[in-house]
């Protein structure tokens, strides 16, 4: 019997939040942005980042929100998890997003930002030797994702393809 209602923790754009089981993490309307969940299944602790841009070094100002970039947000995510009791060797990741919502015929680099976000996320996870157990990336649909620590499943909802668990 459940004695504790699980809380839904919402992660905004360029945001980072943490949860302990049985709470659920959700971020809505991922387009070219990438949602990254890193978790330790037995310590029952997880964090979710909603990354908007690949690289903080491309930024023209320094005092901006660090959760916006893959290269600054993910290290904070991982370090905080470890500080809060996750074991580094047990960390796993699931990722979703990186769509191309509009297909302009332009050479502007900004327009393939989805792809670059996914690559940047994978690079950081690889540096920390965190395996990606599942991914649902690219395409041209928006995604809303929800991660449950109870099941360690990432639920993905799109407008055109309904929902699925990865």
């Amino acid at each position: 019997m459940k004695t504790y209602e699980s809380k839904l923790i919402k992660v905004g754009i360029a945001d980072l939040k943490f949860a302990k089981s049985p709470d659920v993490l959700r971020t809505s309307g991922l387009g070219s942005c990438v949602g990254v969940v890193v978790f330790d299944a037995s310590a029952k602790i997880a964090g979710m980042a909603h990354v908007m841009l690949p690289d903080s070094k491309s930024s023209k100002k320094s005092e901006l929100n660090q959760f916006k970039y893959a290269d600054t947000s993910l290290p904070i995510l991982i370090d905080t998890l470890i500080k809060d009791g996750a074991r580094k060797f047990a960390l796993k990741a699931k990722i979703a997003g990186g769509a191309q919502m509009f297909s302009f015929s332009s050479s502007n680099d900004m327009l393939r930002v989805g792809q670059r976000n996914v690559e940047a996320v994978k690079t950081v996870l690889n540096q920390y030797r965190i395996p990606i157990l599942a991914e649902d990336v690219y395409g041209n649909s928006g995604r809303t994702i929800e991660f449950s620590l109870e099941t360690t499943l990432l639920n993905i909802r799109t407008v055109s393809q309904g929902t699925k668990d990865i």
Partner: protein
Amino acid sequence: MSFIDSLTDYQLDALKEVGNIGSGNAATSLSMLLNHKVDMKVPAVRIVDYNEMMELVGGPDKLIAAVFLRIEGEAPGNMFFVLSPEEAETFVKQMTGSEDFSVQEPPFDEMAMSALQEMGNILAGSYLSALSDFINVLLQPSVPLLTIDMAGAILAEGLLELSQVSDYAIIIDTIIDDHEDENKPIQGHFFLLPDPDSFPKIFNKLGVPEQ
């Protein structure tokens, strides 16, 4: 400190006028297209963080129909025309006289999508040509693209340029009001998001002092 924090009231008023001129012309085009009167609300210039921007259209999860175009030329930026799928459907019915389609869930009707895209094309074109005349700069719109999807996924695309210099966006928001069918009023949002470097150019052309 970002330039967004230091905008003066005078500069904000100038941006409101920019929205006024553009959407006034767009409302006129729309009423010609639909063959009845279309009203326009006084524009609002909003300084919002990204999450607040999504709330303006009902939250990041909300299904919206959006025409997006990139403005190139002397004062580049992004522009959206946003409707709810129900409103988009009402528009298409008024434009085509056809009742036999849906844009509220996929697969979206091809004819309806093409009508909406054309509407976006006409509206954005008239908005920008008025704007271009008013501030006396050359603005070239890209081909407008129509998407029906989650608001967060669509609107975030318009923030990418801006997000490299600011955590906030300046949105020139105008609402177009169509009450031809009292049961199904339509409120379309125009969002104009000039690139950060475009603001000094716009102010300069309008003769608005920097401080």
